[in-house]
């Protein structure tokens, strides 16, 4: 159980720190913390698809955006309360992910990568061309309401923070369930050797689509949070550059590695928020960091460790 408890300890440690963080921070810092929690959830959902199933998916911002726009459109145009938009903000990305990746899921490596970039580009075009007058064109949608429950308004930053905190908690719970089930293992087997995996009776198509469905669902939920957090959505938050960032976080941090993905998210999204003065230089710094990581640590800053097996199987291990 060594590896399980180590990862769980990191997860619990993180959750404990993040749980008390707002009591020691002002609202600007809590906003940065909220962003970190939301982007971490998206990065983990990318990690399910890329780090586990090994699908080179570079269009994840599209699913994040579909969740965000679902909440925005239903709330602003149709007057749904935010709470009621949560389920559609998860379900619609899942359905769309299955529909658009179904026909391309058999593509390997670089081919899938190009196809998923295409998905992201089409999504941005739809947003910018104001489809059915719903997406608001290049400016996006403004005036998304705050969450209301029984007349109580969750308008303070700390409320959003704890909602995002719960979202990350649920995401981590799903990741743990996945990793200790035949579904997560099947993804790793396909990732490491697809021919061997098939010969063991594992359907590559089924488990890759499964990864996309879960990934899109989590990204959609995070998108919904994102929309409420900023009370606005616009296309540039979900473009290919964002997808590249999520993709890079996983590879630089370490595929399928919990601490790796968190480090990646922190470096890519949070450091730039903290050091605003480096705004222009940041991409240069990150670009160099990406190159150096791939040369020096090709499996990521904090690579995943396997051997996640029940303790009764370890009695003979010396």
């Amino acid at each position, binding site marked *: 159980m060594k590896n399980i408890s180590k990862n769980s300890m990191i997860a619990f440690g993180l959750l404990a720190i993040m749980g008390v963080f707002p009591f020691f921070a002002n609202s600007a810092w809590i906003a940065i913390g909220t962003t970190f929690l939301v982007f971490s959830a998206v990065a983990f959902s990318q990690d399910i698809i890329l780090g586990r199933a090994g699908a080179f998916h570079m269009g994840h911002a599209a699913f994040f955006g579909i969740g965000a726009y679902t909440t925005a459109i239903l709330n602003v145009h149709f007057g749904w309360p935010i709470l009621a938009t949560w389920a559609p903000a998860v379900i619609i990305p899942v359905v769309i992910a299955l529909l658009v990746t179904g026909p391309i899921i058999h593509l390997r490596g670089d081919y899938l990568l190009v196809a998923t970039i295409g998905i992201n580009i089409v999504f941005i075009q739809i947003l910018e061309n104001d489809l059915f007058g719903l997406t608001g064109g290049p400016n996006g949608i403004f005036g998304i309401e705050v969450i209301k429950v029984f007349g109580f308004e969750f308008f303070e930053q700390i409320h959003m923070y704890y909602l995002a905190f719960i979202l990350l908690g649920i995401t981590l719970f799903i990741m743990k369930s996945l990793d200790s089930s035949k579904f997560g293992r099947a993804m790793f*087997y396909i990732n490491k050797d697809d021919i061997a995996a098939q010969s063991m009776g594992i359907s590559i198509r089924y488990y890759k689509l499964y990864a996309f469905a879960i990934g899109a669902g989590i990204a959609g939920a995070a998108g919904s949070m994102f929309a409420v957090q900023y009370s606005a959505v616009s296309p540039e938050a979900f473009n290919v550059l964002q997808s590249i960032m999520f993709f890079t976080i996983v590879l630089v941090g370490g595929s399928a590695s919990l601490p790796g993905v968190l480090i990646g998210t922190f470096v890519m999204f949070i450091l730039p928020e903290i050091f605003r003065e480096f705004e222009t230089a940041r991409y240069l710094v990150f670009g160099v960091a990406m190159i150096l990581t791939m040369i020096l640590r090709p499996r990521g800053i904090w690579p995943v460790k396997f051997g996640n097996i029940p303790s009764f199987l370890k009695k003979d291990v010396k």
Partner: protein
Amino acid sequence: MSEYLLEIKNVSKFFYGLTAIDALSLKVKQGQIYGIIGPNGAGKTTLFNCITGIYTPEEGEILWKGKDIKGTPPHKIAELGILRTFQTIRLFAEMSVAENIMSGRHIKSKQKWYNGLIPTPAYYKDERENWEKVGELMEFFGLSQYATTPAGDLSYGVQRKIEMARALAAEPELLILDEPAAGLNENETIELAKTIREIRERGVTIMMIEHDMEMVMSLTEYITVINFGAKISAGVPAFVQDDPIVVEAYIGSDDEDE
């Protein structure tokens, strides 16, 4: 139902006009240890790839218990009870030995789609049972001490065992071994032959490609000899061994190799 477990009928496979397998036929009985031999490049592995669904032959039939399975995708073939090992070892190198063997339990696991998101009592029971099975197999193959070691870090001989354990974990009816003794030393080969017999005692039918003639002759009950994709001889080991056509094919191939 057919009296044969597996029947290959006039199977041909072409690659860009080249004939890899040429109207090949053979029949494997339940409980047999069946050998396929032949010079390098004769089409033996191609035949195994056709049976396991990695390739689809252009002509002929592959009958599993009397039913044509030609064109069935590899993961469905495994579900039917046909499991294999690879000539070039294909393990999940970075993953531990136990996790590698667990991949064989995949088709036996009864976890539901939602168990990837949320555990249920039935899931815990299923997970425990499958890991226990992995434990039994590690003991059978003497792998328990390597349970947490990445498979890729172990010696060739141990990796071959892991591949067999992984295939056996799926409780196959037919186990297809592609050159199981390749790269093993003499002691390991003797041990392997013993293991293969023990596997058969468990009721598993075995089909194997092997170049180690001593092992093939002592272990198998029936042999088909392939050269240039076609069957050139078949029979019990003693017959095949003395068949002039077989001797010629091997000597000819040795000349080409050198």
